[in-house]
């Protein structure tokens, strides 16, 4: 069983101007991580329903937890629009 811990990640929202540091929990889903990234960039980028999280060039299953997706502290993740995939 995965312990519920905070994981800081470097997040990059496609279309945005800079990299952010977002905090998620190991038990959060990748879909929740996507929502955190959208919220963090919302004053510059309008949220979109058609996005997915990418890590090391691979699309992550939104139903996986952060831990199950293999994300660890200070990983780089990207929020990509489907149209640009």
């Amino acid at each position, binding site marked *: 069983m995965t312990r519920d811990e905070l994981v*800081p990640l470097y997040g990059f929202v496609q279309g*945005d*101007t*800079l*990299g*952010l*540091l977002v905090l998620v929990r190991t038990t959060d889903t990748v879909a929740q991580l996507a929502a955190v990234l959208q*919220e963090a960039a919302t004053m510059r980028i309008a949220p979109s329903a058609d996005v997915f999280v990418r890590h090391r060039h691979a699309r992550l299953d939104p139903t996986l937890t952060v831990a199950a997706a293999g994300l660890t502290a200070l990983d780089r993740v990207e929020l990509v629009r489907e149209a640009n995939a």
Partner: protein
Amino acid sequence: MLKRQEWLDLARKLDWTYSYVQEQDVFPEAMSGRPWLEHAAWQAWDEPYRTTFAEYVTGQHEKEGAIAAVRDAVGKVADFGRHDRGWLSALKLHGATLPLAEFAAVVGNLRAARFGRDSAWRTTAAFGALDELRHTQIPLAILHELVGWDPQFDWTHRLFHTNEWVAVAARHFVDELLLGANPIEFAIATNFVFETGFTNLQFVGLSAVAHDVGDRMFEKMVQSIQTDEARHAQIGGPVLRTLVEHDKAYAQYLVDKWFWRSWLFFAVVTGFAMDYLTPLKERKQSFREFVNEWIIEQFERMIHEYGLARPWYWAEFVKSTGYYHHLVYASAYTYRATVWFDFVLPGPEERAWLAEKYPESWPELDPVWTRLSERWQASGPGVEWFTHGVTPVGFCSLCQLVLCGGTPAENSARVVERDGRRFIFCSDPCAWIFEREPERYAKHLTIVERILAGEAPANLIELVRDYFGLTEATWGKDARGGRYPFLVNSPGGTAE
């Protein structure tokens, strides 16, 4: 009585032949720099100004008189109060990043005045130290007058004494460039790349912009500083020539490293001023046009003359001239409370001008300003937080600046694991510089690492107040509080 040309070389070229000590003990490599070469390799060192001490003192006295006269005439609060708020922000940005960096350059020049390998080099560096002391004092004196009128001008002196993120990045750059460098690296990094390649020409461009804006005080100040820079920047060329002759690979490395590091800072400070903070009607050319005309052409020609190649990342650099300062400006606009100057929201006319000047990159950047304008319209004027970020941002492990490399579609930041620790770099050149000398950089913590280590607070307000040292009176805001005529006719328009 001897004529000038009869005694000048005797005075400038006063190099001893040592009899009680070895030359290497007088100029140890640790202090003088590498490669260590006998004096014979350096004795052809010369520069075109060949200034005597009497000429130096006379010339500087005249320049001081000219500055004082302009200050008396147009350097009062009422004179600055007439300027556009955007231009005042450009003054605050330049004012804070300039003087204490110049003070650090006093140290670098003094080290060269003692450990430079030829006496004429040492003499010119001694004048350089006096120049840089002057460049510290002039902006401090002029802008101190404005502190009581606008407390953000207090950051002219305060910035480098804080842990504000621009200050952290500036110190990381300046400490290595000016305080820590040995005379050989200092001559290449500061005199050749930074001064000859960037700031000498930057001051020419900035004084022209200041003239167009009608700011005679700033125009005179940077003109006066530029005349000093033009002289002591000459130290770099002859040092580079000898270095190329004896260790070309090291010469190329120093040029490549310092061109990139200088570029990032130059882009932020001058890019903001030329493309955003100078009123549109006063702009004669875009920042990139200025870089193309004044930086790229002459730098390419210069390094070719010295037998060197363009830096290996040249294509990335050229592309970044259309993106980098725009990405940092938009990012900083949405984190404006973390700096000490205000930001202008570009309106339709400014954005049309930027689209014309940056046809390949602006279509990717414009949607961010559409979004921000919509947010201002939704919130109404004076509601700063609705267009302000609260999530911590990432910083590059090398340059310590925000992660704004690449393009909006593809940010160039990458994470590198080393000795069990993760580093993030905004660009390939920053990663390359770090990897060449990791022992120099690895112990420095970014703001993010300080937050994660518990040294700095994660809460943005606490970070800004307690760690950066900003207050509500001094932190950056929208220069017009969201009151722009161009928002009037839009739904939810905000002009009052």
